[in-house]
């Protein structure tokens, strides 16, 4: 009986802990079933049920693009109405913003700290409007024939709008080959979206940093979804649309927490095998860990200083470039700083945003003016930590009226006050402010501004996702600026740690002193004993 007991005790004492430790430390076998399903589902190319090249109505010689729209609408009878309510056409959205009430904001009337704003510059900016002829306030947003169907649905990649044409393509000689183009009409390709969304701000990758031409040809190492050696997905695979309402929001112009695109829609809310990672998703957006850097191929603009614009060399405007060929100074725009492989900054975001309006008073006591405000906080249950590009700059403001300034940058001809043509601030400001019906005191300065742009693209392969230590670290972690919560590994109470160390050192000291006295006392006793003997 006793033998058995000993065997059992041995088993419990030695074998059981070993077994438990081995089982506990065993890594689960990787399970990619969900990803495999998505991989099978998404690369399948859309097969159109219609061959537009067989349609008689599209074979005619179109004299002007409005006739094309008319032809489109003769079959797609209701799509025109949809477009009239699409932000791609209206450039504004109806949104309730706390403190402001119901607003109608968008690219149409908001400012940024890149090229600042479209108002008074429509002729040039509307090269990216899904319409024809938006040159000024007179544009008719209710006329379906003002819609440009081709710019999004051309599948040949040859349609292009004219520069400074208010949204029209090149007309007449040298214009687009409509027979070919209209025959190809179909779902938008990434190229269609990219022509505007990759080139915003005046060049490739200038504005977003995570949206650029390289995405069309890059591999999974740049964007795991669009990579040509991977799923090779199109923009519209994720940004799907119902009645021309695209999913996805850009908070430089949007304000409300709806119609957003989310990773969870495909990957579910629990995509990780490790539950501790899934738990992170309560407070951390997928993008935060899975987009460790953006602007992976080409640099993006991080800083734009308008205050140095209008300098001249030999009476003319000029440009300076850095070694990589990026324009670092332009007389028409000022100084720029470009960066590549940028680590995002991070913020709490609940999907709602506010914007600086032309009518808002600027608080000059602050270090900078926020062009837009992403709302969120740790304690807000709808908030998650998101990565963002912060674009900093200096732009003109009315130093007496304390409002931000809309500058007239562009015109068809010189002498009408356009900054880019005349290189003169005062007149450009007067013309711009007159156009937006805002008073101008006659005194302008330049004020530091920041703009916050969530980074959602250039998702990295999983092996490149952030490691724990990039945030859970004492100094200079990725989330060092988000101080409204306690994070293990980053935060501590210094007094508590100091006290704790004191207790441990005190204990050790006590032990050493006690042991030393015991040792010497027993030596002395032994010596005394020997003496006696």
């Amino acid at each position, binding site marked *: 009986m006793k033998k058995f007991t000993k065997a059992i005790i041995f088993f419990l004492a030695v074998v059981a802990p070993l077994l438990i430790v081995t089982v506990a430390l065993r890594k689960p076998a990787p399970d990619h079933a969900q990803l495999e399903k998505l991989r099978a589902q998404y690369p399948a190319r859309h097969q159109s049920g219609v061959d537009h090249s067989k349609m008689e109505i599209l074979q005619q010689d179109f004299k002007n693009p409005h006739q094309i729209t008319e032809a489109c609408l003769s079959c797609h009878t209701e799509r025109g109405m949809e477009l009239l309510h699409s932000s791609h056409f209206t450039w504004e959205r109806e949104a309730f913003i706390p403190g402001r009430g119901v607003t109608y904001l968008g690219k149409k009337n908001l400012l940024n700290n890149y090229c600042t704003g479209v108002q008074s510059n429509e002729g040039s900016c509307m090269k990216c409007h899904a319409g024809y002829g938006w040159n000024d306030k007179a544009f008719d947003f209710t006329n379906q024939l003002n819609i440009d169907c081709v710019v999004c649905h051309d599948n040949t990649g040859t349609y292009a709008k004219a520069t400074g044409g208010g949204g029209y393509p090149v007309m007449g000689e040298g214009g687009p080959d409509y027979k070919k183009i209209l025959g190809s009409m179909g779902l938008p390709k990434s190229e269609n979206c990219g022509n505007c969304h990759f080139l915003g701000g005046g060049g490739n990758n200038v504005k977003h940093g995570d949206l650029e031409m390289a995405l069309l040809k890059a591999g999974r190492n740049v964007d795991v979804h669009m990579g040509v050696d991977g799923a090779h997905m199109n923009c519209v695979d994720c940004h799907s649309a119902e009645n021309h309402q695209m999913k996805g929001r850009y908070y430089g112009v949007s304000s409300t927490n709806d119609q957003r695109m989310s990773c969870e829609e495909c990957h579910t809310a629990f995509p990780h095998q490790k539950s501790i990672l899934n738990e992170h998703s309560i407070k951390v957006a997928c993008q935060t860990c899975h987009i460790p850097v953006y602007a992976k191929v080409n640099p993006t603009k991080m800083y734009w200083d308008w205050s140095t614009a209008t300098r001249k060399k030999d009476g003319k405007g000029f440009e300076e470039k850095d070694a990589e060929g990026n324009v670092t100074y332009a007389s028409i725009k000022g100084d720029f700083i470009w960066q590549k492989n940028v680590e995002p900054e991070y913020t709490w975001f609940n999907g709602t945003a506010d914007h600086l309006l032309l009518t808002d008073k600027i608080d000059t006591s602050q270090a900078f003016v926020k062009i837009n405000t992403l709302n969120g906080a740790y304690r807000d249950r709808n908030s998650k930590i998101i990565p963002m590009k912060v674009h900093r700059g200096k732009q003109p403001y009315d130093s007496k009226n304390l409002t931000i300034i809309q500058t007239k940058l562009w015109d068809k001809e010189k002498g009408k006050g356009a900054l880019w043509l005349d290189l003169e601030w005062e007149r450009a400001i007067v013309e711009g402010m007159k156009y937006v019906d805002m008073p101008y005191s006659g005194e302008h300065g330049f004020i530091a501004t920041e703009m916050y742009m969530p980074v959602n693209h250039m998702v990295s392969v999983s092996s490149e996702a952030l490691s724990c230590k990039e945030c859970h670290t004492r100094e200079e972690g990725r989330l060092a600026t988000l101080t409204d919560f306690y994070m*293990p590994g980053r935060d501590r109470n210094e007094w508590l740690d100091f006290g704790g160390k004191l207790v441990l050192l005190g204990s050790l000291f006590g032990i050493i002193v006690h042991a030393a006295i015991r040792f010497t006392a027993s030596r002395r006793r032994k010596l005394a004993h020997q003496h006696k003997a």
Partner: protein
Amino acid sequence: MKKHKKVYVYQGFERFWHWNQALLIFLLALTGFEIHSSYTILGFETAVDIHNKAAWGFIILIIFAIFWHFTTGEWKQYIPTTKNLKAQAEFYLLGIFKNAPHPTEKTLISKLNPLQRLVYLGLKILMIPVMVISGLLFMFYRYPHGNEIEIINIDNLEIIALIHTAGAFAVIAFVLVHLYLITTGHTITSNLKAMISGWEDLEETEDENEVADKKENDHETK
């Protein structure tokens, strides 16, 4: 000098429990302070992994230990007493240097001296529960995860984290002193040997017969 007798002081489960607890506390402290960013040894992710698994191991172990304490009546060992408390303190502070005898006799029914009784009771009803509960709240500060209906929802981890950290310092301080006090038995190693083998030389006491009886019974039941 009193007569000594070999006594089976620590039963099999008791030793199993003790040494596994020792191992788990070592693992928890090592990984815990790595998570606290006090040093880097295993890597943060591995540290968290081991810490969480060791925590579950610890919880399972103490459930068994609680069961054992109550079924064997061993819980009575921890009933605090003031008898000899002063004498015991004086022994550690003075008597031990003069080779004075232990003021409290170690017997099967009273293995712990009054100071040990107090400290171990504190460990059992205060320190360990505080660490386990704050640790569980750390794991489940929002539970069920990602669900609209939440049974546990704590807005700020800070207070939990600070309690858990403070407790960790206290437990380590206990372990340090505990390790040293191992050497204060009849000989330097007698306490350690007893916790390994179960057997210890104890002084024969007046209720020697009673002890002997209990031992007999123990062996018979086995």
